[in-house]
Every structure is written in structure tokens, then in C-alpha cells.
């Protein structure tokens, strides 16, 4: 009996495009952002500011498309949190996977995310991204120029805006670290990443039924 992996089509083309563009933008925004924060030096402050702005506008455009896609194709339903298997999923990561146990949640095109992922990604979409995007927009439009060429300063304290933005950035980096690592916990080390590139994922084979064995 050979254990051949099953291939299922999980990530559609837009989804993959969105994922990788967003990943690249977030990493680039982190690099330029922390340069503006004077933590690292790569592009020089002025270029870092310019690039950060361009990248942030790009990210916002991408997010608008992504939100539309989620709504139009009911993809948002993937993120509805559930308690079913949640504990089992945590136990699996904390213990089970060291013993070679199977994933407690089955991955299908209709249910891409396990309960833990649902929770984390929902937090990503409803908390982390809004924190950086909203604080980022407030940061960007802290000062504006009105029709009479007068510079108008917003009433929010820039300090509060900037600190929320920095907070969001740290959250995103921590997320990125754990997220990248978690992609290695699929059927094989690379199966999840391959899936995000090709759309097709090797999933753990179901136990062969009696009929299959006979064939």
C-alpha cells in the first residue's frame, strides 16, 4: 500500500495574487516603516518615507479588492469562528504533532482554515490590519492642505497616532514570524507554501477504505 497524497484545489488565482502581493507590501512597509522609525537604515529617511507612502497606497488598493472579493464570493464565511475542534487543534500543535498524529481538521476547498487559523486570521483582518491602516491614514492626513493652500493640522495628537501605528507594526511582524513558521506544519514542510503558489495542496490522504484496498 503506497501512501499517495491527495491534491485538492484550494487557493484561487486572485487569492494567491492577493496573498503574495500583500505579503510583499507588508514586508516592504515594515522595512521602510522601521527606517522612518530610525530603527534601521536601508533607503535613507527621505526615500523610506516616499516608498512607505507609495506602498501604503498600493496596500489600500489591494485591500479594497480583497474586501470586495471576500464579499462577492462569500469567502468571508471561511473566517467565521467556531469552537468545534478548536481545543483539539491547539492540542495538536502543542502535543499531537510531535507524536505524528493527524491534523484534527480536514482541509477542503470549502473549509480551508482550521478553527485556530480562523480565529487568528479573523484577528489579523479585523484588528491588526485595521489598526495599522486606520492609524496610517490618520498619520498620513495629520496635516493636509486646503483649497486656499493653508496647511490644516488634525486634532488627533500625532504621538497617539504614531504609537498605535508602531504597535500595529510590531504585531504584524510577530504575526509574520509565526505565520511563516506555521506554513511548514502541513502535510509536508512545504506543502502549504506550494499550495499558496500553485493553488493545489497535498493534503493528508484519507485512510484507504476497504474498497480502495481491494483494487
Amino acid at each position, binding site marked *: 500500500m503506497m501512501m499517495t497524497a491527495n491534491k485538492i484545489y484550494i487557493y484561487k488565482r486572485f487569492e494567491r495574487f492577493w496573498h503574495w502581493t500583500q505579503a510583499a507590501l507588508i514586508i516592504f512597509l515594515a522595512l521602510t516603516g522601521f527606517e522612518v522609525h530610525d530603527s534601521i537604515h536601508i533607503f535613507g529617511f527621505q526615500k523610506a518615507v516616499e516608498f512607505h507612502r507609495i506602498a501604503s497606497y498600493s496596500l489600500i488598493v489591494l485591500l479594497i479588492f480583497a474586501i470586495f472579493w471576500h464579499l462577492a464570493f462569500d469567502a468571508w464565511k471561511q473566517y467565521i469562528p467556531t469552537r468545534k475542534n478548536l481545543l483539539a487543534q491547539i492540542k495538536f500543535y502543542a502535543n499531537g504533532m510531535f507524536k505524528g498524529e493527524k491534523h484534527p481538521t480536514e482541509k477542503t476547498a470549502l473549509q480551508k482554515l482550521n478553527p485556530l487559523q480562523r480565529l487568528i486570521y479573523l484577528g489579523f483582518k479585523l484588528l491588526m490590519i485595521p489598526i495599522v491602516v486606520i492609524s496610517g491614514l490618520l498619520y498620513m492626513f495629520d496635516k493636509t492642505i486646503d483649497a486656499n493652500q493653508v496647511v490644516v493640522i488634525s486634532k488627533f495628537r500625532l504621538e497617539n497616532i504614531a*504609537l498605535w501605528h508602531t504597535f500595529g*507594526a510590531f504585531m504584524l511582524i510577530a504575526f509574520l514570524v509565526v505565520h511563516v513558521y506555521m506554513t511548514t506544519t502541513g502535510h509536508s514542510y512545504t506543502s502549504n507554501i506550494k499550495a499558496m503558489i500553485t493553488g493545489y495542496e497535498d493534503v493528508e490522504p484519507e485512510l484507504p477504505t476497504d474498497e480502495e484496498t481491494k483494487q
Partner: protein
Amino acid sequence: MKKTIALIIGFILLILIAINIFNQDDIVDLQLEKLKQTYAVKPIPSVDHRKLPELQKEFKSPQEVTEVCISCHTETPKEVMASAHWNWERAGYIEGRGIKFLGKKNVVNNYCIGSKTNEQACAKCHIGFGMTNNDEFNYKDSNNVDCMVCHDNSETYQKGASLAGYPDREVNLEKVAQSVGMPKKSNCGSCHFYSGGGNNVKHGDLEEAQLDCSREVDVHMASNGLNLECIACHTATNHQIKGRLYSVSSDNENRANCEDCHTSTPHFATILNTHTARIACQTCHIPEYAKVNATKMDWKWSTAGIMKNGEPYETEDSVGNHDYMTIKGSFVWKKNVKPDYVWFNGTANHHLVGDQITSIPIQINALNGSYTDKYSKIIPVKINTGDQIYDKKYNYLIIPKLYAPEKGDSAYWADFDWNTASEAGMKRIGLPYSGSHGFVSTVMYWPLNHMVAPKDKSVSCAECHTRNNGRLAHLSGFYMPGRDRSARLDFLGRWLVILSVVGVVIHNSLRILSAYRRKKIEMNIINYNTNDDDSE
């Protein structure tokens, strides 16, 4: 195949967009070009004064020249005599003090301290003749107006040293009278370059080098640039000249601003334009001052009076500037100075004669402004420090009598006795001198407006937006990206990331370890199974 083509097209499109965004040609600034066109045209005077018969004569006194001037320019004396250049004072409003008449007549500074009792020397920079005592000077006599000091275009007119505002005896008045025209740099500079007793002593950003300098020194006045005259910006209506100097001024009126020509949003980049809400143009565009000749930064009167072999003496620093003079004390000169930065809303307070000393160093002309005041902007300043004489008992500054043509007239520069000099000075002021004096530290602020650098030499972003020793490091109360952060948030954030990495590494190590152990066990089973398969 179709997919590949689509991919290639998409990729090329992305590259083209990127090139477009990141590679912009130098766009011509039409607004700036228009300004250059406007100011490149130099007006031709409508009158050639050489042709006027009234001026074809030998003048015995400068007043005779003025008489001829006002025989045609009949209403001009009224205008001139309403100016601070003539009155040496101007009505101004000081927050908390009300309306004050301030000017060279009565303010204190921390250079030569004050003009009272020293008019014979100080009046070299008064646009009048014969002001030996400004309390007794006839401010109503229009014949005493010195038209030539501002309007001589022959560059030969010169006020005499300690002649109470009279011209040097060598001046050919006929030639000067026939050459008059609009004021040139050399006219304004004859006083404003040399204030404080020498070139560039006081301002730091106004000096004789600007008569003929490169764009690197001053983009506006450069001979290889537009070569603007002072009056291009300091325009005048009825002899009321635009511009405020806060060593003598206190209110935010009739100032000459960069924005008058350049508007408040002169950059292509919005992010630079929004800076103008709280940052004055000068802050970024005057990266340093005293670019050609040094300026006096510190003057300690307390060391004055030391004699060498019973005689007053002077010493010079390595570049030839006086660093000690028996008559004045010790100095520090600096060249290519990075400005200091303060908040400024256009109004200033003044430490006036007779004011009690409440804090040290005394702020001779405290510039008002703060981050919380929305009309304040950050401006570059020259700060002049030093010490000067005060009355220990009455606790106020002393205006000493410094100048007298001869010894024995209680002038410090002749007799070197602070007691008699203070006595004589304070008598004129009308305040008592207790007989006990000391020296107290003072500071003065000189807003910098000139020596604007070419745009590629302006202060770069990171010179302020940096954690370490940025130009604005000492200004507090506001958040500046790059300079400021919450140390606690950064600490927590850094540890959040570090712990994530550590957690991930531990988890992965455990996986590898456990997988290795399981493999060992599985190996046996698999071997067994394999054998089993083979045998099938």
C-alpha cells in the same frame, strides 16, 4: 501559452509603472521661473540726477544737499521722519506690557549695551546729521535727514567715525548728490552689515561678503544668481520698509516673509508643503550662517579693563578676529555655524532698561512661541551669549557711558572706570546707580533670514528626523517621526518579535527531534513491511 504571454505583459506593465513612479525627471518649477523672470528685470531710473541744475554746485554741508532734495521731493521728509530709521523707535505691543516705544534709542543689547550717552559714536548709523544726544536732537528738522546714506549710488558716501551721523570729511557731496538712486546693498549694508562695531558682528547672516558672493553663500544676493538688492524683498511704501528685526521689534507686523514671493506651499512634494505649518522656510533652507566671515557669538564684558604696561591692548584669534580688547572684554567668533532652533510666533519680549533681574541668564529679547501655540513655527536663530554690567543693589542692568572723544569725560573706553561710566550712563537714563556693580550673563536671539542655501544644500530630512543629536533634538513637547518613540512600546514590541522567533525555533526543534525518534521506531516496522511487500 496564452497564460505565459499574459504573465509577461503583466510583468512588463509592472516594471513600467515602477519606473514611472521612481524615476522622475527634474520638473521645471514654473512658479520659480516666473519669479526669476520678474526679478531679472532691473528698473531704469526715470531721472538722471546728474542733469539737474540744482545739483550742479559745491555743497558746504550735507544739510545743503538735503535742502535741495526736498525742494523737489517735497513730501518725502514727512515719510522719512515717520520711520524707525529716523526716530530710532517705533510703537510696538508687548504681551503683558502694553504698547511700548522701542528702538535703538532705548533698547538694551549684549553687544555695546545701549546707545544712550554714546550717540556721537552710535549715530554713525542714524539717518540724520548731528545727533550727539538723542534726548536733545531735533527730530522735527527735516534738513537733518540724511538722504544720501540710503540713496547714494556712487558707493563713495560714508558716515564719519564718531561724527554724530555727519559724513566723513573726505566725501565729495556734489558727486554723491548727483548719483542718487534706489538703495543698493551697499547702502543698507553700510549700517546693517557692520552693526555691533564690525563686519558680521551682530547678525551672522548679513555681511559685506554678500555684496559679491556665490549662490552657495546666498541664493538671492549671489552675483552669479539674481543678485537681488535688499529692497527686492524689503519693499517700502512711503519709506516704511518691510521687515522686522527682533533685537528692536516686538510685534508681528509688516514683516518680510519668504512666502510673499514663494507662497506657503512652494514644493512639489505635499509632505514638504505640510511642513510649512509649523516649520519656517528658513529652518531647512539656512543650514548654516556666517559662511564667509566669522560672527561674534559670545562677548564677556567682565574681562574688560586689563592693561598691558599700563596701556589698553588687543589680541587676535588664529583667523584675525579680536578675541580680547581692553575696552570691550573677550569675544568668541565662529564661522559656518549651525543655527539654534526655537519656537517663534512673530512676537518678542524685551528686557528693558530698569527691569528687575529675575532670572539668569537674562533674556534680552525673549522670542515668544511654543509648540502649543498654533501660530508658532520653528525658526533658526543665532544666540549671542555673554555677560554685562548690572547694578548689584538695584538689581537692574546698567547702560554705561562708553564713548567720549577725550579722557576725563567718565567714558569707559577712555578712562576704564566702570563706576564713573555707570554713574554717567545711568544719570542720562534717569535711574540711580548704587555704586556697586557686577556682571550678569545675558542671551540675545537673532532670527536668521539671509544666507539661504541652494535647494540641494538645504537641511536634509534625516538631520532632524533622527534619534541621535538631530538639529531639533532639544525642542520638546511634540512627536516627531524618526526622533521620537515610546521606549516602553519599542521594548515590548521587540520582545514580542524575539519571543515569537524563539517560540518558533523551539517548536520546530521539538518537531525535528520527535520526528527523528519516531522515524527510528518506524524504520523497524517499515523494514518489516517492505520485506513483506517484496515477498508478495
